[in-house]
């Protein structure tokens, strides 16, 4: 088969000593920055690009290292998310739902191990997809117009509303609050400043890092300060590496499904790891959550999004390399790096510079294996963090939040906004409002607005354009079905009051 030949030639590139070392450096840096909230892969890549230029690395070597940071950070990200409920990027928010719940019930080590293994499964399975389908999927993704994107995002919200359990109104409030926050700042279409109150700093919009850290990390500090049961952490027996692996096998199919969902979503430019992890979680909840344990520390609730966001990171390489369309901020920076080295991603890249594409694909196998070997034994070290007494740990979490927010822009306003979002997040969590839809709304809002406006501009204001293609109609039907079906089912089961109450509690985190 042609693909296997290509891949073999790719391994010849990836196994050169320099490239092996660079892949290792990449994944190590990636894991580390992924663990630190607010730093994120994008900053690390941006810092390393000039170094890669200065070292005169060949393009494939530079890409191997920079991509290593990208997918390595997906591993590291889940560590702070699971242990401290501090998701560094939007794609880890879903992992926080069950991951942190597992930590609270003393199963942090299991959660970390499952997350590492699921990340590995997602990372490697999706490379098969990359190798086999890259040319094919590139053609498919190009058919996504603005109307289809808009419908896809509505579908993502509908899927997420199911996570909120019984209370749809609270999910709606959270979603629309996120969408509204997303409109703060400079409107690129008209050049108008919206909701900035004359504050220059807000022209760039609500900073994702500030909002997330406020809503999750700071609100967690307040919650623990209540002194209630909810904030107590328990570090459990850590167990051997093999025991953790055996435990994770139970979630094998979840990981496979999460990988497929994540990969497919990741291929769509603009959708990325966030939507992928939400969709995988929602799909998995529909399929296997018979006893309503999702949201209260179900291992599969960690496995699905972690497999998905790693698979999406690979999938995102497809539009980047074959169309030259970056799907996220991080891949946009990668695109900049490639262009700087005179490599123009596009349909011709596979023919003209095969060593770049196939060398990268092969190196991702190696990198993912390195990450697994690196992460599994370290689980025990990471969990030690939880053995700190609360008076030492949580002020530290607060200080880490301050640095993450302050270091980026040196802005006092950001610190105030973070505090404000911390209070709002604390109250919302206390009242059982789900926070994940708010984050999704904030991240997807600009894309949604851009696409609906583009669609209407093309149609001259005719709203029918949103339902004009078979693909768009299919997505709308899916969205409607996802939103209505669980509601009908829960209506019928309303007699069993206690059960539905429990579900509402579980989904409200």
């Amino acid at each position, binding site marked *: 088969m042609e693909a296997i030949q290509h891949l073999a030639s790719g391994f010849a590139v990836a196994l050169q000593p320099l490239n092996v070392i660079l892949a290792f450096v990449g994944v190590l840096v990636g894991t580390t920055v992924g663990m*630190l909230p607010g*730093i994120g892969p994008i900053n690390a890549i941006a*810092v390393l690009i000039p170094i890669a230029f200065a070292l005169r690395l060949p393009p494939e070597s530079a890409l191997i290292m920079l991509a290593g940071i990208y997918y390595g950070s997906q591993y590291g990200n889940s560590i702070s998310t699971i242990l401290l409920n501090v998701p560094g990027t939007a794609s880890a928010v879903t992992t926080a739902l069950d991951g942190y719940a597992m930590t609270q019930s003393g199963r942090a080590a299991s959660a970390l191990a499952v997350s590492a293994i699921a990340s590995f499964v997602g990372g490697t399975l999706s490379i098969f997809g990359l190798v086999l389908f890259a040319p094919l999927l590139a053609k498919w993704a190009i058919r996504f117009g603005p109307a289809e994107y808009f419908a896809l995002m509505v579908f993502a919200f509908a899927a997420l509303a199911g996570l909120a359990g019984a*209370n749809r*109104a*609270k*999910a*709606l*409030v959270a*979603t*629309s*609050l996120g969408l*509204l926050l*997303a*409109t703060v700042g400079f*409107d690129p279409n*008209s*050049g*108008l400043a*919206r*909701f900035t109150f004359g504050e220059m700093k807000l022209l760039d919009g609500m900073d994702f890092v500030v909002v997330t850290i406020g809503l999750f990390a*700071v609100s967690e*500090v*307040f919650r*623990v*300060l*209540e*002194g209630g049961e909810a904030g107590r952490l328990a570090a459990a027996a850590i167990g051997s590496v093999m025991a953790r692996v055996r435990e994770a096998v139970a979630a094998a199919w979840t990981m496979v499904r999460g990988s497929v969902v994540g990969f497919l979503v990741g291929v769509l430019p603009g959708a990325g790891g966030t939507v992928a992890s939400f969709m995988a979680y929602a799909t998995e909840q529909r399929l296997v959550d018979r006893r309503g344990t999702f949201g209260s520390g179900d291992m599969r609730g960690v496995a699905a999004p972690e497999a998905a966001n790693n698979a999406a990171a690979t999938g995102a390489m497809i539009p980047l390399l074959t169309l030259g369309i970056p799907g996220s901020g991080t891949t946009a920076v990668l695109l900049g790096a490639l262009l700087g080295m005179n490599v123009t991603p596009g349909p011709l890249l596979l023919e003209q510079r095969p060593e770049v594409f196939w060398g990268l694909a092969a190196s991702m196998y190696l990198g993912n294996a390195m990450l697994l070997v690196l992460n599994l034994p370290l689980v025990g070290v990471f969990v030690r963090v939880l053995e700190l007494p609360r*008076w*030492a740990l*949580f*002020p*530290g979490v*607060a*200080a*880490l939040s*301050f*640095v993450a927010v*302050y*270091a980026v822009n*040196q802005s*006092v306003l950001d*610190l*105030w906004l973070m*505090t404000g979002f911390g209070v709002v997040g*604390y*109250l*919302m969590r*206390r*009242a*059982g*409002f789900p926070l994940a839809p708010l984050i999704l709304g904030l991240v997807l*809002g600009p894309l*949604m*607005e851009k696409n*609906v406006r*583009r669609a209407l*501009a093309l149609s*001259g*204001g005719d709203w029918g354009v949103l339902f004009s293609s078979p693909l768009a109609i299919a997505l709308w039907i899916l969205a409607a079905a996802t939103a209505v079906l669980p509601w009908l089912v829960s209506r019928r089961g309303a007699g069993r009051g206690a059960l539905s109450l429990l579900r509402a509690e579980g989904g409200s985190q």
Partner: protein
Amino acid sequence: MKLASLDRVLGVAFFAVAAGAALQARKFSVAFLIDPLGPKGFPLLAATLLAAGSLFVVLRPDRRSEFPERAAAGRIAAAVASFVIYALSVAPLGFFLSTALEVAFLARLFGGGVKASLASGALTAAGLWILFALVLGLPLPAGMIFG
């Protein structure tokens, strides 16, 4: 049913946010429209959804949602106040000093001993300074004392 549950208060607050945003958004107008929806369409849509959702919450609040207890609310208010002071003091006092003091204060709030809290503050601030300023090269304010 109690009239003022946490749900009701939040619902009313969010409804006010939606109303305020909608009033603001109606004024978003530009001389030349490139697209039919313009800059106000999407914010108005989001505000409408928010108003609808929060109205539901106000009308059918969850009886189990309660305010935090008085003592807990006091501790949280103290923490919030310290966050605000920290934001103001970090530039003049410098990252190390202000972070050490803030962490020590929070540690006390979480029930740590005086000496232990001060030590934890100094250690945390030093660790973060080394990691972020020295290793990652991020610009953190040194402050007037060290700067």
